[in-house]
């Protein structure tokens, strides 16, 4: 009989396995809570930051709060160049872009019969633009060059909702889905400065971020030059590229500076994010507690095994086995079992990722195909750490047993 076989035999007879399996199940559950909480948070954060929008996920719009003074002066608070530079230096802010408004008249007309489902209407409107860097220009044929007859527009998704769920229903008019509106073009008359021109407008996309009608910057520059007056001032709104637009700290900073984040969704996302972080913190604390308890359980089980086998281990030591040789089979056995617990946690985390993805996709959210690296990184850190602690505890117990 080989020494190692004998050690394993002695240890196998020394302890009831049920308590070990309970401790291992606790370790698996703790590790799963750890990586599962991370995975869930990552999934929800990715969903919140990946809304379909022609404006990418990392932008937000700010303006100054409208005060009584603004009302009296008739001008909203604007951002001068110094303020724009200052905001650009804030942590988490990548780039600052100014909104340009139209300094000419615009009239949009839908002629009855242009599209079966659309009533004929005509309205004065305003246009704004932001630098193209802030718009995913590859999408939906965004962009304009002098000589182009067609002007792409981005309009707030809320406008369509207002029409569909307010106006159309009240008037008994048909509902218009986004896809239909995008296929419709309308007349866009531009005039001022004694000149006029006719273009065709096309809805290129919808946004939940900006309560404005956006046209390409090139068109705005061209039209302001051709038809506009010379009274361009500082912008009233800024578009910002942010590392994490839903970062609660950023929201806090804007509020303190007296700025408003346009559109409620960013603020809502920020609050949800704070809540999510808080919940993740609570779950991670619970996970750590479970892991510590499970580790204590496993270590205690290993120590009991060693102490119950102490006489045999001591004799083997007296026959010439080193403490390391005696600890090796036990360490191997517990490492394999810890690996099993980690495997279970890994499998459950993957299953959770798949289930979350399926559930969110069914609700129309765009999800990330790959699981979160943070979740697996956390497992990759926690499992070896547990392994090291466990192996140390086993070495110590065996040494004590050998020395009697």
């Amino acid at each position: 009989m080989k020494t190692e076989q004998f050690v394993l035999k002695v240890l196998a007879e020394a302890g009831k396995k049920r308590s070990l399996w309970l401790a291992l199940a606790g370790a698996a559950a703790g590790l799963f809570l750890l990586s599962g909480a991370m995975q869930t948070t990552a999934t929800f954060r990715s969903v919140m930051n990946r809304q379909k929008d022609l404006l990418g996920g990392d932008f937000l719009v700010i303006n100054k709060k409208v005060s009584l003074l603004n009302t009296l002066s008739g001008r909203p608070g604007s951002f001068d160049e110094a303020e724009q530079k200052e905001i650009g230096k804030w942590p988490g802010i990548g780039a600052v872009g100014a909104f340009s408004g139209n300094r000419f008249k615009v009239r949009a007309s839908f002629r009855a019969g242009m599209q079966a489902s659309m009533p004929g209407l005509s309205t004065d409107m305003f246009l704004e633009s932001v630098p193209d860097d802030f718009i995913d220009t590859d999408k939906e044929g965004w962009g304009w060059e002098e000589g182009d007859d067609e002007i792409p527009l981005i309009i707030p998704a809320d406008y369509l909702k207002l029409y569909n769920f307010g106006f159309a229903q009240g008037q008994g008019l048909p509902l218009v889905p986004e896809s239909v509106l995008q296929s419709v073009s309308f007349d866009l008359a531009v005039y001022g400065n004694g000149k006029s021109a006719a273009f065709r407008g096309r809805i290129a996309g919808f946004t939940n971020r900006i309560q404005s009608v956006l046209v390409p910057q090139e068109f705005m520059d061209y039209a302001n030059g051709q038809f506009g007056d010379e009274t361009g001032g500082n912008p009233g709104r800024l578009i910002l590229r942010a590392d994490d637009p839903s970062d609660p700290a950023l929201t806090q900073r804007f509020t303190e500076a007296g700025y408003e984040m346009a559109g409620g969704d960013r603020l809502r996302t920020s609050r949800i994010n704070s809540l999510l972080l808080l919940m993740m913190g609570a779950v991670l604390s619970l996970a750590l507690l479970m892991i510590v308890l499970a580790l204590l359980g496993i270590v205690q089980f290993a120590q009991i095994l060693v102490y119950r086998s102490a006489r045999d281990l001591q004799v083997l030591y007296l026959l010439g086995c080193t403490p390391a040789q005696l600890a090796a089979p036990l360490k191997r056995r517990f490492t394999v079992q810890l690996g099993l617990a980690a495997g279970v946690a890994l499998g459950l985390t993957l299953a959770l990722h798949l289930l979350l993805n399926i559930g969110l996709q069914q609700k129309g959210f765009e999800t990330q195909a790959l699981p979160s690296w943070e979740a697996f990184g956390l497992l990759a850190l926690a499992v070896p750490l547990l392994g090291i602690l466990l192996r140390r505890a086993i070495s110590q117990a065996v040494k004590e047993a050998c020395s009697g």
Partner: protein
Amino acid sequence: MMLTFERLVPAPLEGNTAPDSIWQTGVSFSQGKLYSVYAPSGKGKSTLMHILLGIRRDFSGVYAIHGKDSAAYTPDDWAGLRRDRLASVYQDLKLFPQISAAENIAIKASLTGFSSSRWRAMAERLGIANLLERPCRTLSMGQQQRVAIVRALSQPFQYLLMDEPVSHLDRENARLVIDLALEEAATQGAAVLLTGLNVQDTPAQFQPVQI
């Protein structure tokens, strides 16, 4: 390899040692020699064996192994010494009762690379070959003593330390054990230290050591 005690007094015997005992005079054991340790019961025979084997460290003075203070030896060093240089038969035998006699010996032989045919031949010589497959706990004390002796001899050694190795054996079996031990020790050029023999039963070549 030489084993030396310099003013070594075990903690239990502190202040209770005779002026002519090895605790007072010091002693050196040399490889290739034979020693028979005599002492009244409770005067430290087993303690001496345990100190020599590194099991007890509760003593004052110095125990030097080949000139090096044994206090400097790590658990791994002691394991190596016991595996390759210090063979031992303990008074309480230290067998594993739950496994067979053969398995008891094989565990030691697997550690030292000792061949199965050699230890089986020794078991044959001591009259326990037919008992080897029986669990140790079912053997008589005399039979277990012989299993422990075969196990002790299943390794290379420079010292064979035997604490009352024949206390449960009749005169004939005791002679077989001593003869085998002396032969193996001579083959390996090793020293033999044993306790528990009466002066009249001790072979003449043994040097007496009085505690």
